[in-house]
């Protein structure tokens, strides 16, 4: 078949850092359809989310190169869009993409505007030349800024270390274990004998969905990696309740549903800024402190499971911003419209298990994070309050908040210090 007319090639996108291939779920357009730029062309499935991939140009859909259900590596051509008169652009598009990346790295003024530490001209140039994400570089300059020396030191370590096997490398670029003949029990293809039917009780065997399997694997891994310890605080939410009552309607007029979650996220963000040790990950016999504060909020998907979309740079958002983000992520999570990247990069997780009536819980840490905060049921309770040395009974709107933390990285004292800050922020909300 002849492909002499000018065509634009649609390629399988890289839908996340850890993604090397994608499965074509559903073609949303058929051969011969007119296609507008940014119009959804197909759905692509990864193991957690299904994402719409949009057309990169307008034209006529000429050819679908892979059927539904096909799994193709990232960057593979998957469709051809023809556009009479338009130049087929491969190289130019890539050049544009590269230019954009360089430009972004080269604007220190832009960085200054968002309140990050200042990037000097030489640091900006070197970062662009070497493709360095400055948030990965430890800054020793004034105010924690990254200096030229810091960049040089970073380059030295980067040159020496062999890139650790991550999913970013192609399969044949990832080193093997070096162990050739493992016991056959560890080899694939050993047909497992069916469980003896006579021993099982009456019932039904439900096969695992991809999500359930992923959750199961993650939970087992998390528990075996981290020594889990929980500390529980009782938080007086009176002021939060009052603030919410006073502002709910105004937020609703802006199209934002104000729940308790944004308050919790805000308090957590403040706590993480004050106690950076909690905003961390275990990294091969060292503790990595994260600069950004990315807070994940667990969203229940009913019987299907749960998912944790991440609010990036939560410390930079005010309550309205947080509320918007929470609404948007939760809504899209329930409609299964999250992008894979939106579940990545979290540095802390909040789970509002109290909405289903639970008082307090000891959740499992969302790896590779250091801790997870469980907010229990918000209810009125009777408390003893002391005023000028006199005890009396009061009715307060209280919430048990538990911090389950990885005891490799944190001790009880630092965990409690963090929780004390969170408690103080919530109890002193204005």
């Amino acid at each position, binding site marked *: *078949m002849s*492909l*002499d007319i000018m*065509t634009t*090639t649609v390629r399988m996108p890289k839908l996340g850092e850890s993604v*090397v*291939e994608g499965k074509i779920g559903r073609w949303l357009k058929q051969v011969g359809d007119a296609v507008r730029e940014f119009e959804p062309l197909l759905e692509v499935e990864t193991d957690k989310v299904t994402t719409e991939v949009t057309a990169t140009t307008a034209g006529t859909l000429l050819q679908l*190169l*892979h059927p539904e259900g*096909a*799994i*193709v*590596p990232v960057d*593979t*051509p998957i469709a051809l869009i023809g556009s009479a008169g338009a130049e087929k652009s491969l190289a130019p598009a890539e050049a544009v993409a590269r230019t954009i990346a360089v430009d972004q790295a080269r604007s220190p003024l832009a960085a200054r505007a968002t309140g990050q530490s200042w990037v000097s001209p030489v640091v900006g140039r070197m970062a662009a030349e070497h493709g360095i994400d400055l948030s990965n570089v430890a800054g020793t300059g004034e105010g924690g800024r990254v200096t030229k020396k810091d960049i040089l030191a970073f380059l030295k370590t980067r*040159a020496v270390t*062999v*890139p650790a096997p991550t999913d970013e490398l*192609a*399969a*044949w*670029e*990832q*080193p*093997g*274990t*070096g*162990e*050739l003949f493992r016991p056959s029990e560890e*080899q*694939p*293809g050993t*047909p497992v004998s069916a469980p003896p039917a006579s021993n099982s009780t009456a019932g039904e065997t439900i096969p695992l969905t991809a999500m359930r399997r992923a959750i199961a694997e993650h939970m087992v891994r998390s528990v075996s990696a981290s020594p889990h310890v929980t500390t529980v605080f009782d938080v007086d939410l009176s002021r939060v309740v009052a603030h919410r009552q006073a502002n709910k309607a105004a937020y609703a007029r802006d199209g934002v549903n104000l729940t308790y979650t944004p308050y919790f996220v805000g308090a957590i963000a403040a706590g993480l800024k004050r106690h950076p040790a909690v905003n961390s990950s275990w990294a091969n016999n060292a503790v990595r402190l994260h600069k950004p504060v990315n807070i994940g909020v667990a969203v229940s998907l009913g019987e299907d499971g749960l998912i944790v979309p991440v609010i990036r740079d939560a410390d930079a958002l005010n309550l309205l911003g947080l509320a918007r983000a929470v609404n948007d992520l939760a809504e899209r999570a329930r409609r299964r419209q999250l992008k894979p990247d939106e579940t990545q990069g979290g540095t802390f997780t909040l789970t509002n298990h109290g909405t289903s009536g639970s008082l307090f819980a000891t959740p499992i840490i969302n790896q590779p994070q250091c801790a997870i905060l469980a907010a229990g049921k918000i209810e009125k309770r009777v408390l003893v309050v002391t005023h000028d040395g006199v005890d009396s009974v009061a009715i307060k709107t209280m919430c048990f908040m538990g911090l389950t933390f990885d005891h490799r990285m944190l001790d009880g004292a630092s965990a409690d210090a963090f929780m004390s800050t969170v408690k103080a922020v919530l109890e002193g909300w204005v």
Partner: protein
Amino acid sequence: MDTQTPAIADPPAETLAEMYAMLILARKLDERCWILHRQGKIGFHISGMGHEAAQVGIVWAMRRGYDLLHPYYRDLAMVLACGMSPTDVLLGSFGRQGDPSSGGRQMPNHYCYKPGNVFSVSSPVGTQLPQAAGLALAEQLSGGDRVVVTCVGEGSTSEGDFHEALVWAGVRKLPLVVVVENNEYAISVPMRQQMAIERVSERAGGYGVRGVSVDGLDMLASYRAAREAIDIARAGGGSTLLDARVVRLTPHSSDDNDATYRSAEEKIALKARDPLPRVRANLIARGALTEAQALDIEARALIEVDAAHRAAEAAPYPPNAWALGPVFA
């Protein structure tokens, strides 16, 4: 050592496009096997990535399916060119009953395909060389005109069997081409520690056979060198030791950790020598292929590999009786 032969012409454009399609099919299938291994779906894979241009060039110089091929485990592109399908290869990788190489008895990539006159790959290296000499001897004794092509890595040229086979080849002027796919590493042992000479072809004179060195990253140079050697062998002019310099873009096998002996810089430099982009650009520049055709070929290869993957993964395992036989004919 050089015989006077007429200059070998390059194949016509349609053939070049076919050869390119084979390069891509081999590469895509190879990549899929690595992914399958890293996904834990197959137990082992040993690769030919970086060897494809030499293999496709050389195998196209044979009368495929007529001449005899006694390959080694990296010769994926060659066995595909001799009639094995991607499904055939993957049936072997998955150890399924329909595996034409061995019915699931041998490890992956131990090819054998009788309909294409492809002989059985073994694990002890170099054993194919005296056997290939024997195939050629039988051809010579019975007056046949088929040529035997056998392939081996440069590490295996240290084995006694390599030298013994070349003794036979030289003494009897066998219709044999011994291809050494020199990727400069035998697992982790570099060429410097495998031989005290610069090129394997230097050995040829010692056995009284023709020695030829070729850039194995150049598909057409490999084709021309192989074609000349095969023509000479077929005409009764004797054997050639054809040494093709290639690159091993991957670790030795799926379980090798080559970070222990190849630096990150070396691997980056190696990747830049990948023969496939060079062949692609070359074929487009000489008008044998358009950009659109190349993209079409690449897309089709993936479709074919996908289908082969599904088919092989769903295929049944061999019955237990196949573990015990057949022992005797």
